[in-house]
């Protein structure tokens, strides 16, 4: 079978029936993205590798749960990767809290993200007002909850919520606009 000619949704059906070559094809198509996202979030090659392995294994085990009507496969698998990476970030913080060192987290928030190439998203992120960018970094890239972010930044929770909404909308509008420029 010409696996590389099949759609993601067809491959996931095959994976669900235990087809290992279909899994390999999905790996070839998506592993780099998953790895990059994990590396972006975790900043650690080895941890990113573990997350990638974990994500691919969960595709092997849960591909039946993927619903092509609901999301693109690339989105689905990226969400799994994001969840896993955020879990790892939270575990790290728990460990750090148990063996108290200094809190580098906020300082790291920018530097972890800054070294990565973002294409369109990067420029959209950089165009966000600083206070909006901050909540996106801390939430999406660092896995803090909005309550934690509110305490860390000493901003009312309502403000953090509003900034999250504004940030996501600005990002969407910005990326939609640049997509239209391309067309």
């Amino acid at each position, binding site marked *: 079978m010409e696996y590389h000619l099949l759609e993601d949704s067809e491959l996931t*059906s095959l994976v*669900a*029936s*235990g087809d*290992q070559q279909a*899994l*390999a094809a999905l*790996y070839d198509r998506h*592993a*780099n*993205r998953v*790895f*990059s996202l994990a*590396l*972006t979030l975790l900043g650690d090659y080895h941890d990113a*590798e573990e997350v*990638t*392995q974990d994500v*691919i*294994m*969960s595709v*092997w*085990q*849960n*591909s*039946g*749960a*993927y*619903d*092509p*009507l609901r999301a693109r496969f690339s*989105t689905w698998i*990226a969400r799994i990767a*994001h*969840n896993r990476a*955020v879990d790892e970030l939270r575990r790290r913080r728990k460990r750090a809290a148990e063996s108290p060192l200094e809190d580098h987290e906020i300082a790291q928030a920018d530097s972890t993200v800054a070294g*990565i*190439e*973002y294409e369109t*998203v*990067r420029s*959209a*992120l950089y165009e966000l007002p600083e206070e909006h960018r901050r*909540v*996106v970094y*801390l*939430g*999406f890239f660092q896995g803090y*909850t*909005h*309550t934690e*972010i509110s305490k860390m930044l000493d901003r009312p929770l309502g403000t*953090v*919520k509003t900034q*999250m*909404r504004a940030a*996501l909308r600005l*990002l*969407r509008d910005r*990326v939609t606009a640049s997509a239209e420029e391309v067309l």
Partner: protein
Amino acid sequence: MKCEEAGELIHAYLLGALDEDERRGLEAHVRGCPDCLAVYYEESQSMEMLLRVGDPVPAPLGLRKRILDMVNASARPAMRPGLIGGPLALLRSALRQPVAATAMAVVSITLVVLSGGAVLLWQEVNELKDEDSRLSANLQDQLDQIQEENERLAQTIVNQLDLAYLASMEGVSTVMLEGGDSAPKSTGMLMLSPNATWGVLLTLGLESLPRDKVYQLWLMSNNIRTSAGTFKVDSAGQGQLMVQGLGDLRDFENLEVSIEPAEGSPEASGANVLKGPMVIDGSQ
């Protein structure tokens, strides 16, 4: 949760920045609220975009082979319980007779096909409606059924996501239910999240019910009976129900599923089809 509050939480949810309770509450609301679901889809575009952040960095060279070796060594999906190798396989082995097409993969494909079919039927019905305003009672009836089926499918899809999420967690435990007197061949399993504050009930082998009936799950402790929600099953007898908002589920002593009127009952009134003590089968 009200729509207003849900609207305020959706963006933090998309960023992955809600704590566990808020996340559960929001999901429960959005699941039952088409308005908020529409907002969710609309707003989720920016999150999808964030997930595409970054140029692909090549994954480590040996990783592909290592994963494929692991997969190969386990023949069937293993490691942690998954939808394919985990709960359903367990459930199937608990059933004595083979159940056709129980793999969640098949369910998932069926869902797609069914929804596609339902849409087609829907269109047919609507075309007829245009053609002939004297829509027969029979067709209207079919339309109602399709709508009902669509709602059920939507619920199943959401539950599948919960299940996938649950299956990906460590420390998940299970409670087995066996068929009651009126449905001895049916079986069920409640998968519990690590802290047992929520879970997903899976059933196999239950009969499809007429439209005015539902299955209702009851949790009992000290002779007090609490409803944990209602569900329907598909033509293969499979049903799923998300159980949450009842505190630590391990605090209950027994579980029971009975057949009740469509809107559910305050007290169990119908035949008991599944039952079992809240005995944890152990973490997987």
